[in-house]
């Protein structure tokens, strides 16, 4: 076999994968290894592949991903804390031909925004909700969130979450799957190549549902917060598999057609 040089491989016709144009060139503000970056890319790749960049309006939350509009090269709005589903409702009702999605963390969607989330889901607004669940308030310094696991350490539960004192974790995805307004509810992850591919299929299905005016799709992405959990990125991914997934099992929770 003749030797082939790297320059011969690195030709445009041999290109297999490159960063989508729908992510801007701004370096992501997330910690090294954070699943937010992968989740951003998954959403933007789906919008790129569907060719709906011009028609898409995203709603950024408050939290680590508050600056999502710096990285996502689509029209964006930024909502008050937890109010992204309410803002998305308004945007979608005023411009029903647009594709509207919210991108929210657990401190945003499952804590201060619980009411907006539940009511938007119950009304069955024709939007996509992307929910990043890392079980902690990452941006403010790793405080306990509603989604923090029992026994899990955070800066405000340094001996682990005591359920008797601090209450039970909130499985908001299972909760909203009960509501008649939701069409597609799923839980995914982005820690391995296979998981990223599955998550991308789920996000694609969610946007296809919106395209067909079918109703509300809710995609939870269980993610790591290695800074908040005080681990390296790969350790945090392993910890997530061992501890988060038994409590937050991956897979489709509700699929209506």
């Amino acid at each position, binding site marked *: 076999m003749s030797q082939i040089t790297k320059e011969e*491989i690195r030709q445009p016709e041999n290109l297999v994968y490159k960063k989508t144009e729908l992510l801007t060139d701004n370096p992501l503000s997330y910690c090294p290894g954070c699943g937010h970056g992968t989740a951003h890319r998954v959403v933007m790749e789906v919008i790129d592949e569907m060719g709906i960049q011009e028609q898409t309006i995203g709603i950024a939350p408050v939290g680590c991903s508050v600056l999502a509009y710096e990285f996502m090269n689509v029209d964006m709005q930024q909502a008050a804390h937890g109010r992204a589903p309410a803002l998305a409702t308004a945007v979608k009702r005023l411009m029903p031909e647009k594709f509207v999605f919210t991108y929210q963390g657990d401190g945003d969607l499952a804590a201060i925004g619980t009411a907006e989330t539940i009511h938007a889901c119950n009304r069955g607004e024709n939007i996509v909700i992307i929910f990043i669940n890392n079980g902690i308030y990452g941006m403010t310094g790793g405080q306990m969130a509603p989604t923090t696991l029992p026994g899990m350490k955070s800066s405000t539960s340094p001996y682990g979450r005591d359920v008797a004192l601090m209450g039970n974790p909130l499985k908001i995805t299972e909760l909203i799957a009960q509501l008649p307004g939701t069409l597609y509810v799923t839980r995914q992850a982005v820690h391995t*190549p296979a998981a990223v591919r599955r998550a991308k299929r789920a996000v694609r299905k969610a946007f296809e549902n919106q395209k067909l005016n079918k109703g509300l799709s809710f995609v939870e992405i269980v993610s790591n917060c290695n800074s908040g959990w005080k681990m390296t990125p790969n350790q945090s991914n392993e910890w997530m598999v061992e501890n988060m997934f038994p409590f937050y099992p991956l897979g489709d929770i509700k699929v209506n057609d």
Partner: protein
Amino acid sequence: MAKIKGDIVIDIEKCKGCSVCIPACPQDVIALSANVNSKGYHFAETVNDACTGCANCAIVCPDAVITVYRKKVE
């Protein structure tokens, strides 16, 4: 027999050295460099020529710094 050869290009200035790509690579092509970029991160680099262009590393990279090429060699 046709053989697949791949190669990756890493944007080392944007790489944060999180090393999520390292266990994702089935060929053990990637390792962290001893050098650092201008932000002070030990960036990822290729350490051998075993790459098959499967793109697993690029798919898990949170910062989307990896570009993947693949060529069939006769």
